[in-house]
């Protein structure tokens, strides 16, 4: 019997068409997808070895299409509907924008706000990804600007990637995995993915029972 590996749930979020699926497919399957096939919800699993340790990544690739997300008055919540209820189960987040689209970059802040608020934490394992770095000519988001955001969020790791050229693809996922490994190194055993271990200050739940 093989030793049970640690499992992490990660989610890829971001605006429509920024390359979330291409990035994920490159990482998991080593394929480049030229066509644009908007995602509704796809899931992947991959065993990865990082720094000599092996773990399983459960990756949920989400819809960037806004009609599948819940948008609220404040504009603060822009997660897929499902994630609102399941955010607590997610360990790490990839926030993807395209360097060719300023609005996709501007969508990141509300996404992070929503995550932090729902998980009730100040900080969460996260990587910012500026995809389509091969399209330098169409660049709308300068490296400077992205760096500024990363600093503002407390030096969150930031990569510019190209799913097309397979540049920085593994790096993005590995960085997140390392963050997760580090964070969960204390609480041994498999299955970090199940439950709200991530985030610490989870409040006790006062539940009154139904008496029959």
């Amino acid at each position, binding site marked *: 019997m093989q030793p049970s590996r640690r499992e992490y749930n990660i989610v890829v979020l971001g605006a429509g068409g920024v390359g979330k699926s291409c990035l994920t497919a490159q990482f998991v399957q080593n394929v480049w*997808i030229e066509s644009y096939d908007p995602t509704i919800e796809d*899931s992947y699993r991959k065993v990865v070895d990082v720094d000599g340790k092996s773990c399983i990544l459960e990756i949920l690739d989400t819809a960037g299409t806004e*009609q599948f997300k819940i948008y609220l008055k404040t504009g603060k919540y822009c997660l897929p509907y499902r994630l609102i209820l399941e955010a607590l189960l997610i360990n790490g987040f990839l926030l993807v924008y395209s360097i060719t689209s300023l609005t996709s970059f501007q*969508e990141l802040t509300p996404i992070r706000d929503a995550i932090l608020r729902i998980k009730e934490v100040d900080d969460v394992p996260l990587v910012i990804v500026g995809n389509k770095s091969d399209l330098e000519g169409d660049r709308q988001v300068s490296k400077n600007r992205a760096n500024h955001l990363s600093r503002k969020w407390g030096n969150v790791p930031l990569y510019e990637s190209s799913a097309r050229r397979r540049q920085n693809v593994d790096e993005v996922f590995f960085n997140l995995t390392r963050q997760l490994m580090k964070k969960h190194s204390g609480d041994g055993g498999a299955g970090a993915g199940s439950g709200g271990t991530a985030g610490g200050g989870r409040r006790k*739940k006062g539940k009154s029972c139904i008496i029959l």
Partner: protein
Amino acid sequence: MSVTTMLAPSTRNSAASSTSSGFVPVSRQNTITSSEGAPRSVRASKRYSVTALYLSMSAQDRDLEIEDELARVQKTLRDLKSKISSQSKKNFVLEKDVRYLDSRIALLIQNRMALEEQNEVASHFDESSEIEGGTFPNDQKTQAYGNLFYLLQSEPRHIAALCRCVSMAEIDSLLQTVMFTIYGNQYESREEHLLLTMFQSVLSAQFETTPEYSSLLRANTPVSRMMTTYTRRGPGQSYLKVVLAKQINNLIEHKDLNLEINPLKVYEQMIKNVEEDTGALPANMPRSVSAEQAAENVQVQAIIEPRLTMLMEIANTFLATIIDNLDETPYGIRWICKQIRSLTRRKYPDAKDHIICTLIGGFFFLRFLNPAIVTPRSYMLIDSVPSEHPRRTLTLIAKMLQNLANKPSYAKEPYMARLAPFVANNKMRINKFLNDLCEVGDFYESLEMDNYVALSKKDLELNITLNEVYATHALLEKHSEELLSGRDTQHLRILLEELGAAPAQVPRKENRAIDLPLFSRWEGNIDDLSAALDITQEDVYFMEAKSIFVQLLRTLPATSAAARRPLNLRKIGDTATTMKDMGMFRKGMRGLELLNQLQEMGVITDQDNFQILREEIEQELVHLGSLKEKVMEETKKLEEVYKTIRDHNAYLVSQLETYKSYLHNVRSQSEGKQRNAGKQQKQQVLGPYKFTHQQLEKEGVIQKSNVPDNRRANIFFNITSPMPGTFVISLHYKGRNRGLLELDLKLDDLLEMQQNNHDELDLEYVQFNVPKVLALLNKRFARKKNW
């Protein structure tokens, strides 16, 4: 402009829209233009359509209230339409509240909401009360804003330009005002067409600025937001209901039907089952496997195989219903598809048909149908969040439909490739369907006409709130530089300058809904309608005569000798002039006068009893007769729509009530904790209220009963609320003093159960339905102010 086509689009669009929009007749005393005789046939058809216009205009003639059946059903239809429009605006606002609270309550239930945020949510409730009616603070402003909103409404390009400058944060409230207020009359062809014109202008700007078609319409932009909001109006909603509600409801009834086909997930479930059954895992079953290993597992394959067949069957029924309902698809949505097609062809002349279909599908499926399939509750298709298995099935169905519209790359999730036959078998069908969707006529000519008519309407009004007025003004002001840099913006500039700085938003309590009279500052009365329409004086007289005689005939008692066929026009006129009713008298006089004039002009002659005119009048009456049927048919349909919208409203309101009471509870509990326990206010006990078994069964509160049929009549329940948020349900048998069973219920628990899709509340003898219980408690125990 050709007059022949003028009315055609709107009749096709909605059978009675041109006849029920309450036009006022155009003054025509001094409308003399060229009298060049057009060839007979053209003139005749011209006459027909323009007469239709006259008739529709006279539907609201103040001079003479026509009170026949047709007028009555038309009025019913008009009222219904305006009720639907205003109700769907209310629902749109309520839905946003409920969706907001859905997510907040989920957190609250998990005790994850800080007190200050609880207060924030609570203040939200105060906001969702209805806004009172009122008037504008001052007359001069009323006039200035009336001019501004007239301009905004009749020249959609300003709003279109504004939509392109505002930020994503600003667009929501702007769109709410645009779609539910400025163009809020969803069944009024002119407003609908103006809105679509605005759409077109934003769409083509998007095509201009997008470099490659693969990324067209994909990003979240003001256009996509407009599409979302647009599809949420009455027609879009009722369409979704028609094509999806039944299928989805069928599906979610089968809570336990698991159609997962992802081998990994299937394998996991299998492991779990084995472990539960036998307490251990056999050595050849590792806990976690790779996707490939799972897919190769024979047992997994055996589970998946029949599910594939079933999924394809279900997806096929969805597809068949969608295709069969081509004609039910709202005109506006089809017209948007058409714009996407023609803009693509223009910008990318080499684009292959399947590429174009992908783009149309990108709107129709990705933005419209599929979101409703994935989250049917937010689209009022079902009343509660579906449980896990059906939810997954719905997601899979949506993915299959998406694959149909788009070229699927199974590279991503290889297991989806097993569903390839569905795509292969339906590809042709779907492309044909997407092209068929685009086959609708344009409306530009009828719009031009509608606009002329609107100019002469004296009662053009907009029901709008002060805050909507101010917010729109503020946005115009903020982006004025960009807006006014365009061509032809002189009028907008003048109006904005006169209005000065935009007032701040007023507090909720002072906000008022006003009826803003709209009128143009620049165009006067349109005496030149006939010039605009390119018709002759003869035509005008002829039409007027026809219109008058039709009106007289509709008003005269059916038993009147003058109404007998063949028609005698002189006699009809004479009869009318002998009537006491001044309106009839005047119409009669005018009718006789016109007969003479037309005869002098040589258009008709006494000799054949004014045959041409008479025949057209008779035809018109036949046409009006079938019009009545059509109007009634449309009314019936819209009543259905209205009922759906009202039901949904009731549901939204009750959901809000539940949340309110829950929140009140949580807050009073934490307040109680903060205060001294002894100081707590004395709580008033409510109830007990008595309910019979039969009653609860009928209302669906009891969803299952183990009580033998012949005993049910003797069973009843008492419900008491000793304090807010706590309920005691007891079950009694007639004649016995003590209850058989008592159950303490906390509102929190019920809400938590609802949130987790636990629908059953077990009372041993009977099973209650959780949402229904919640509704019942709400209705009975609403503690007025305290909630």
